[in-house]
């Protein structure tokens, strides 16, 4: 007992509160965005190879990503905090051995986004602005929920990926995860809500059988208006789908649509306006 108390006392007394990290290496784009949004941008030393938002990241060093983190380069930057994915077990072990503190990011549902923002704020010395940002996001989502309250949930299909100009290899949102949460928060009913996976390999038959009234495609590669029109026309062969008949197929190429970061409030509102234009006084 005395021994335990001694340890406790040592922990409480001997270590002064650590100063906020000044050289952050962030491998998670959603957290990078958060760091800049809460005013910790100046503390960021390097980001992942997929980061492109906010524009301030353009000049920063790149240190790999989820599958190929460059440990040597990360260590050479002498970081005092590295933001890693929970699944990067090897990297975490190596950083731990080198004595580099980490923040472990877990990709989960919509409610976790603001939790992460608050945690990142605490960890980097920007607790107040993070809390403010999280509050703004929560209020924006609450406003959307209020606006569409009582409206019928629109059966919708969210497509992440498919072969260009064809309906082969459709990869759609299943009934769990961040994208599913976004859809439900925006007043949609995921047609694959019963499939308890983050992603479903949807065949033509499955899509026909589920009868979505709206199809939302998150495809960053489709950028020009011509491509968009051609990709939407690819659905024409499934003419019995309500979404095809009422021409309610939308392709979003902005990457923010699938990033669980500070722009989620905006994303939920965009999706809600797409699903329920009448509620927003169009």
């Amino acid at each position: 007992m005395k021994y335990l108390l001694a340890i406790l006392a040592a922990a409480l007394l001997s270590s002064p509160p650590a100063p906020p990290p000044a050289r952050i290496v962030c491998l998670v784009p959603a957290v990078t965005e958060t760091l800049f949004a809460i005013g910790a941008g100046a503390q960021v030393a390097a980001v992942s190879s997929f980061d492109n938002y906010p524009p301030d990241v353009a000049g920063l060093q790149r240190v790999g990503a989820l599958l190929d983190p460059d440990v040597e380069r990360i260590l050479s930057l002498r970081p005092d905090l590295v933001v890693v994915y929970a699944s990067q077990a090897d990297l975490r072990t190596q950083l731990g051995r080198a004595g580099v503190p980490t923040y472990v990011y877990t990709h989960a549902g919509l409610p976790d986004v603001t939790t992460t923002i608050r945690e990142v704020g605490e960890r980097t010395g920007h607790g107040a602005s993070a809390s403010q940002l999280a509050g703004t996001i929560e209020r924006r989502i609450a406003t959307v929920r209020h606006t569409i309250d009582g409206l019928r949930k629109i059966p919708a299909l969210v497509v992440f990926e498919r072969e260009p100009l064809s309906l082969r290899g459709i990869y759609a949102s299943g009934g769990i995860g961040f994208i599913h949460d976004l859809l439900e928060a925006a007043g949609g009913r995921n047609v694959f809500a019963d499939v308890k996976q983050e992603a479903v390999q949807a065949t033509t038959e499955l899509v026909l059988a589920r009868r979505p009234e709206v199809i939302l495609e998150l495809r960053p590669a489709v950028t020009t208006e011509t491509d968009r029109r051609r990709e939407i026309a690819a659905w024409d062969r499934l003419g019995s789908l309500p979404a095809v008949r009422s021409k309610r197929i939308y392709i979003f190429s902005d990457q923010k649509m699938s990033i669980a970061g500070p722009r989620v409030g905006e994303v939920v509102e965009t999706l809600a306006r797409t699903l329920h234009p009448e509620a927003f006084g169009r």
Partner: protein
Amino acid sequence: MTTTTLGGRMWRTLPWFAALAILAIAGGPLVGSTHISLRRALDPTLPFADNVDAQIFFVARLPRTLAGAMVGSMLACAGVVFQGLLRNPLATPFTLGVSAGAALGAMLAITFGWSFAWLGIPAAPAASFIGSLVAVGIVYALAQARHRGLSTNVLLLAGVTMNAFFSALILFVQYFADFGQTYRILRWLMGDLDVSSYEPLVTALPLVLVSFAVFAWLARPLNLLSLGPESAGTHGLDVTRAQRAAFVSASLATGAAVSVGGPVGFVGIIIPHLVRLMVGSDHRLVLPASALFGAAFLVGCDVIARTVMAPVELPVGVITALIGGPFFLWLLLRRA
């Protein structure tokens, strides 16, 4: 059995294989992950655009079943021809680098976002067909370079080497792919028959017909080749010509099959062996029986793929691999 004529044996066996293939193709569209009413699907008074059952039947299931029949019969026949040509029972349509070349082509198309459509086929299948032609072209050139005629040993070694080399290139290209592309690559490599339109089938049809015409001519030459090239030559066969015809037709058939369904594994080895167990080794029987049985087998596997995990559906390559892997091992043990 020994005294019966070939015509008689054909007449006694092939109708059974044909019946099996017809049964599979007719039954394939009737089952699936969802329940549809056949009466409603075939009701001409309902407008097609409003008829979900008809769309599931004609847009989702029928093309998928026909694709299964086409791919299954081509891979099975290509397997028979490659085994005869290489005189190696473990040869498959993919032994000589066709599938690795096709995979590399598809991967380049996916990773670098090519989105052209060639003769109505989207970029990935088109590029996979071109990739398979490049691979077999290189293997063919190597096998011919230092020999008069085709050296089957060099063919085999060059094919295996090309497979390994293209696999390395695939890993290299994959490094440039993002998550979505990686998923599409993986999905393509599994082999999948959900073609969702008749276009790929119609585009592949000329190649199918040409290949089958050559296969029909090849039956007797393959019988002679099984005695060894020297003996075949003394029986009056133009060995080099027969080997070239076998190599080119089987490669084209494999390339076309892969462009439709991706590299669906094991069909090209299971079917020829099962058929030989049933009808003997005369290629005049083995080839048509393999075409029919291959079609029935792949359609059957696809029915399993579409229903076993309902409400979701699996790519057919997963099922053929699950059946084929153990079968291949059994074959190895049996021969050893």
